[in-house]
């Protein structure tokens, strides 16, 4: 356990009669800290060690690899694509966040829901949807008679398409972060300016945006990190035309060279981790500098009431969403309704056979559904339980260590999935010590990676709920002699249960759609939905791939619908799309 005390500053500053683990709840603390260490610290150390080994073996060789034409080109491509997509995501995301926060549109809830749905739809599904939308065989464009002639390359393939799809996909991410910032802009500032007769534009330009500027910066950095780490979009839109990014390069190295490629892949993953890590740290630094004095006041609420502005904004948003979200999904559906890829959709050719038999005939598809459900379901349950303990321990017992523990918990989520996956391979490629069994190539390694990656998502709402709990009730229970286990299960759990469920479900949604991690970790029998989609697409089964994407998207949309229907049971803003639309109180 030496590494625990080395990496986590847990030793109390002053020595008490009983050391921290002997106090009540010490066992829980130990278990939680142990879990966090195993999930979040050990894999990363392993990656560092492996990269270190490669460098030790021969610094010149490592440098030669990192400076090789292919790595340099992939790095350049990654930076260009991440940068370009960030610009688009910022423009759209900030605009949507501003409109939804400042104007009480009639359909804002629906708009917010749709916008977040476009983020929850797997990136590879988005990529596939846009690809089917734009080519010469696009079912929608052909129906409208405006499809490009045969022989025209698909405009979605290559840099432009990747940046477009990625930018649209990450815009909701930007909007969510910016909305969190807008919620902290004091309402009184806006009211004062309005009393002075300031125009709406002046208020936005000179009051709201400057106050929320650090959130804007942080949102841009987040979108950039997401862009550097994204695998699904460049895999579908870049690899067919030879545009490699760092994550697709790692994938190709592992896929084509097997374990021989692992050391090089580890080195390239380190490069990704460094690029992404720099942006993550910059973002954390930015957020640490934000002015906390604004926190106490009532946040920004819808204030623009000009009917014409409302109309225009509402129409504009629906128009943009129709092109960016609805149309691609419709095209995906249309592609799934033809008997073979490339056939024009009309009444004579329409068939539901992809959904009724073709898809389900394949054991791969059935297995992928079962696997994705099992992996993400068990990850969600385990994470929900762990989150409760983690939030409790961090809030009550180790409050001083919070500043150290939380970044560690968030690190695997913040880092691209490729990095986590490679770290897990390195960790488990040899049989486990003591037990002597190997989980490499089994479903356990995927589950482990999911737990490490998505802990941060599950713990977020629970942390917020536990922190805001009154301590009085618990203190009364302590006086009554209730043990820590009693207090957790009888008092705290019932109150924070909705947050625990919300956190678990968010983790489930994201894990269910995930591709990056499983693309590198899958093996015989452990294919996930993402892997199955990539595989069908690779085998040239375009209509089947589209059908699978439609079903997966249906599952996600359905689950989000269930969450929305049950939103009264969750704490306010536990659902991301609600964060986009603050309610008006007066």
């Amino acid at each position, binding site marked *: 356990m030496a590494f625990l005390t080395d990496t986590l500053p847990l030793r109390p500053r002053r020595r008490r009669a009983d050391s921290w683990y002997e106090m009540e709840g010490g066992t829980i603390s130990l278990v939680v800290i142990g879990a966090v260490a195993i999930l979040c610290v050990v894999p990363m150390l392993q990656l560092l060690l492996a990269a270190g080994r490669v460098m030790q073996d021969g610094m010149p060789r490592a440098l030669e690899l990192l400076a090789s034409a292919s790595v340099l080109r992939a790095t350049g491509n990654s930076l260009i694509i991440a940068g370009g997509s960030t610009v688009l995501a910022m423009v759209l995301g900030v605009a949507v966040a501003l409109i939804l926060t400042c104007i009480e549109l009639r359909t804002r809830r629906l708009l917010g829901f749709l916008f977040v749905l476009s983020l929850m739809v797997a990136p590879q599904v988005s990529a596939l949807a846009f690809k089917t939308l734009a080519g010469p065989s696009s079912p929608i464009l052909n129906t409208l008679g405006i499809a490009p002639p045969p022989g025209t390359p698909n405009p979605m393939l290559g840099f432009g398409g990747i940046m477009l799809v990625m930018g649209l996909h990450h815009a909701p991410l930007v909007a969510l972060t910016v909305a969190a910032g807008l919620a902290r802009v004091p309402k009184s500032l806006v009211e004062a300016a309005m009393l002075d007769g300031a125009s709406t534009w002046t208020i936005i330009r000179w009051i709201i945006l400057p106050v929320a500027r650090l959130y804007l910066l942080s949102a841009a950095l987040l979108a950039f990190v997401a862009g550097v780490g994204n695998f699904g979009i460049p895999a579908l839109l870049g690899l067919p035309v030879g545009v490699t990014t760092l994550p697709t390069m790692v994938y190709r190295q592992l896929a084509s060279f097997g374990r021989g490629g692992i050391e090089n892949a580890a080195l390239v993953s380190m490069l990704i981790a460094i690029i992404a890590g720099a942006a993550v740290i910059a973002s954390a630094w930015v957020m640490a500098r934000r002015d906390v004095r604004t926190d106490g006041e009532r946040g920004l609420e819808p204030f623009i009431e000009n009917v014409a502005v409302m109309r225009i904004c509402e129409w504009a948003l629906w128009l943009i969403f129709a092109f960016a979200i609805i149309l691609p999904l419709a095209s995906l559906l249309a592609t799934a309704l033809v008997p073979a890829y490339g056939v024009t959709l009309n009444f004579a050719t329409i068939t539901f056979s992809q959904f009724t038999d073709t898809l389900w005939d394949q054991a791969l598809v059935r297995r992928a559904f079962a696997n994705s459900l099992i992996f993400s379901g068990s990850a969600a349950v385990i994470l929900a339980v762990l989150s409760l303990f983690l939030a409790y321990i961090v809030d009550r017992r180790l409050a001083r260590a919070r500043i150290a523990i939380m970044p560690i918990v968030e690190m695997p989520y913040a880092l691209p999935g490729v990095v986590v996956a490679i770290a897990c391979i390195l960790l488990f490629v040899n049989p486990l010590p003591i037990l002597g069994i190997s989980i490499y*190539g089994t479903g356990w390694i995927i589950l482990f990676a999911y737990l490490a990656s998505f802990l941060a998502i599950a713990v977020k709402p629970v942390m917020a709920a536990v922190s805001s709990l009154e301590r009085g009730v618990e203190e009364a229970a302590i006086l009554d002699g209730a043990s820590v286990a009693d207090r957790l299960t009888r008092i705290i759990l019932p109150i924070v249960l909705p947050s625990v469920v919300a956190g678990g479900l968010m983790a489930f949604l994201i894990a269910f759609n995930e591709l990056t991690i499983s693309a590198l970790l899958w093996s015989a029998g452990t294919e996930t939905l993402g892997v199955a989609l990539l595989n069908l697409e690779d085998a040239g089964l375009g209509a089947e791939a589209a059908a699978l994407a439609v079903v997966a998207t249906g599952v996600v949309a359905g689950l989000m619908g269930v969450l929305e229907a049950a939103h009264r049971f969750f704490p306010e803003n536990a659902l991301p799309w609600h964060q986009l639309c603050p309610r008006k109180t007066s």
Partner: protein
Amino acid sequence: MNSLAKLLIAGASLLSTAASAFAVEGQLTLYTSQPNNDAQKTVDAFMEKYPDVTVTFVRDGTTRIVAKLRAELEAGNSPADVLLIADSVTMEGLAKDGYLMAYEDADLSDYADEMQDPERMWFPTKLITTGIIYNTNAPMKPSSWEDLLSEEAKNQVAMPSPLTPGAALIHTHSIVENLDMGWDYYEKLAANGAQASGGNGGVLKAVAGGEKLYGMVVEFLPIREKAKGAPVDFVFPEEGVSAISEPVAILKGTQNEEAAKAFVDFLLSEEGQKLAAEQGYMPALADVTPPEGFPSLAEINFLTIDPAEALERAEADKEKFAEIFGQN
């Protein structure tokens, strides 16, 4: 007398298959490069015959599935029992490294001997040729490999990269060996804006979707998609087509030798060959009628190669190709 003997032998072999069918049970893991739907059908038909065997299959492009397999074999924990991949050159490589199990008793009496591996490590199951696919809306109907160098085909040719699937590597080798132009052919293709990436599936999608008009592709994909109504057609070019045999092999480390042998027998049997034909493949067994849309075996003009030399030159060929098409 002769026919009586035949009858007796047939009866005996029937009995022996019936007897061995009894012992065939348990789990069997197949690693394959067949497209998912075909692999599924093959596995389903096998399991129908041997209900006590549960077959799981893993599918990826030949290069990738073999990379995965080799990684697992090196780690000593591969679940694979049987391997069914595109080409015999890759099989030769695995046999050379001692990963395959010889199956001396395989019944090859109906097969031509020159196609078979003398060491009985792997067995051809089909004949897959690579020719030219074109979109039916294309202005030109290609008839020879040289047509892909023409002005009409500028920026319109897609082909699989030999760095991914096994068939493409053999194809590259066959073209270079047989066309007078040799590597110049690929140089000219590259200069004509041909795009090389991914596997055969990607080429089919690009041409069926109209993003490219012509492509080099394995024949069964376009012939089958054409039957379903996709706007594509396939031609066997004048110079000839390259061919691979989609061999099957048993891994040395198999946990279920009986079931693995039964699987190989099944693929080689007339029943298995008819299934291949139903799936739209050219069967390896000459007696089985090829599927609709295929010329008879005798009509096809082949580009011939020496497999041993192909294996030896594989790395060099890949490098040369990567250099011409600027890939890493």
